[in-house]
């Protein structure tokens, strides 16, 4: 009843091609934006912001980047942690070595550095696919792991291997308190989400999906696989690089290369599988799931009154993650995003059953 499109006619193709063509969706998004930009910073506790919301926002951005490559263009990558690392360390070097470098500039340069590395390690995708490409991307992961540990210029000569940043500000406005950091990250996320959505609903998005669905047919239509794949790697690693910079600067404050190791890569992959491959919304769902689940699992035994020590809880988390991945792949390979859109379909008919 509430969710029908009755009476909403589009008078131009432009109107039909909007991101949110249904009025109720536009209203909902409007309310959501007010909620996340205005209400949350005012009422959320510092714990909520630092432990849940900020990681969620930044990991959503990273998941978004990975989804473009894996979900939209169909190129698997097990090494995206490496691109986050490149973004973080490049941004760090800008910030630490150049006096007075603006934060945004550092982050963007981090993204660009990540783009270069991403395109480089994306070149194999022109010749190899699927599982072979997966192994090749591991090369990126371990190589960058090593570079951050063993090449002194990466960490600007840090003896302990860890680096830290402080005193962040944007155009004079401080980015220090949890609420400020949250808003900054959120602004970056919102901007990139919009740009990404425009890309995937435009010509390049269709090229990516064509390559994903059937690359031989795509070539016959005149789509250049080289251009499509490399742009997917480039855009994906740019976004992930910026996310890496945000992760280091805005969330961690100080970090070691281990923050971007292979576990991080798998974590991102799990996010987009569970959230929904090939869906911008899915990246958010997946990130939310992965960020919230460990906290729920940690707290569950406490709420249920069963004492479990932290080590066992960690092991159980592993088990549940693994089981959930398999579950989603079997039951709903298109992830939570598909469940969401199916629910919306049902909502259109509500209260009628069909």
């Amino acid at each position, binding site marked *: 009843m509430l969710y029908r499109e009755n009476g909403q006619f589009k008078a131009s193709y432009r109107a039909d091609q909007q991101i949110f063509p249904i009025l109720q969706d536009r209203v909902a998004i409007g309310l959501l934006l007010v909620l996340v930009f205005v209400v949350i910073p005012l009422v959320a506790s510092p714990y909520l912001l630092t432990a849940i919301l900020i990681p969620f926002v930044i990991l959503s951005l990273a998941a978004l980047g990975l989804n473009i490559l894996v979900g939209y263009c*169909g190129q*698997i990558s097990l090494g995206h942690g490496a691109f986050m690392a490149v973004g973080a360390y490049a941004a760090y070097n800008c910030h630490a070595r150049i006096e007075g470098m603006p934060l945004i500039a550092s982050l963007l340069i981090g993204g660009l550095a990540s783009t270069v590395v991403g395109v480089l390690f994306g070149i*194999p995708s022109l*010749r*190899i696919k*699927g*599982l*072979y490409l*997966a*192994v*090749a991307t*591991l*090369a990126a992961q*371990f*190589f960058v*792991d*090593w570079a951050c*540990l*063993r*090449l*002194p210029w990466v960490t600007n000569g840090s003896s302990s291997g860890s680096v830290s940043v402080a005193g962040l500000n944007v155009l004079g406005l401080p980015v220090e308190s949890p609420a400020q950091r949250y808003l900054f990250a959120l602004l970056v996320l919102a901007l990139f989400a919009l740009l990404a959505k425009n890309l995937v609903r435009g010509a390049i998005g269709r090229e990516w999906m064509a390559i994903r669905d059937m690359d*031989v*047919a795509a070539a016959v239509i005149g789509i250049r696989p080289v251009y499509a794949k490399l742009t997917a790697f480039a855009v994906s690693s740019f976004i992930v690089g910026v996310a890496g910079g945000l992760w280091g600067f805005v969330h961690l404050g100080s970090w070691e290369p281990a923050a971007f190791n292979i576990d991080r890569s*798998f974590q991102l*992959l*799990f996010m987009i*599988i569970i959230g929904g491959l090939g869906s911008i919304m899915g990246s958010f769902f997946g990130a939310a799931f992965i960020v919230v689940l460990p906290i729920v699992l940690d707290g569950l035994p406490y709420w249920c009154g069963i004492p479990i020590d932290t*080590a*066992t809880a*960690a*092991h*159980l*988390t*592993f*088990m*549940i*993650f*693994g*089981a*959930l*991945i*398999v579950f989603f*792949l*079997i039951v709903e*390979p298109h992830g939570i995003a598909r469940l969401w859109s199916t629910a919306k379909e049902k909502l259109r008919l509500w209260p009628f059953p069909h």
Partner: protein
Amino acid sequence: MAFFLETLFGGLMVGMLYSLIALGFVLIYKASGVFNFAQGAMVLFAAMAMARFSEWIPKWLGFDNKVLANVLAFGVALLAMVCVAWVIERLVLRYLVNQEHITLLMATLGITYFLEGFGQTLFGSAIYKIDVGLPKDPVFILENTFAGGVLINKEDLYAAAIAAVLVALLALFFQKTATGRALRAVADDHQAAQSIGIPLGRIWIIVWSVAGFVALVAGVIWGSKLGVQFTLSLVALKALPVVILGGLTSVPGAIIGGLIIGVGEKLSEIYIGPLFGGGIEIWFAYVLALLFLLVRPQGLFGEKIIDRV
């Protein structure tokens, strides 16, 4: 020169161990078309089972004979791997028949995480010992040619021998038996094999059990050498470049690929490593595999991949 030979032999031995793990990969891929990311986790699980059961069984049954304990533990661990294979087939593979490779790969990623958590819940997460009586003393060879001789680990020699026997048995199995033929049919096309009456489920259980057996042998040898700990599964990840190099469908490829990677790693670490600041072992195997993929995507002995429209 003696040092070079020692490094070479050391690399060959490590390579042999990688090959053992890679064997499990190749088996599963050959027979079910699945790229089993969880092979490393299986090795770790098997090794943990072996280590713990060899401790527990004497306590439960109240005897002291080490050999008997090891034999029984091996048997129980093998049974455990068969159970794992059965569960995987029942709960995962059965539902993913004929899905794309990527989906299956990601499913095995999920299995990896599950097995790692499960193994540590069941068996604990400390470092455990495996002692199956492999001699640990070193031996010196070629004492006439080089002063002082070249140092080789007897343990490694035994490991190499065991691996060789295992490979021979597996090659025989695939080539000469009806089950082996059925396995190859399944690897080609799940649905087609099913439609001609090959019992897909049973075949998969067999294959994953055999891979589990191989994982157990690999786990015992590795564990006896390094001790059983969590990092074993990371080492096992190295088997991926081995499989790429050798070809996903080739048993001899897994062996040769393992040897190349093992030797390459050791030699590059000693001779090239210092130029870059050391520690290049963590990525050498992968970069080598990557370069190989660009030149010859199917690996040394693999089958050429043809795309049809």
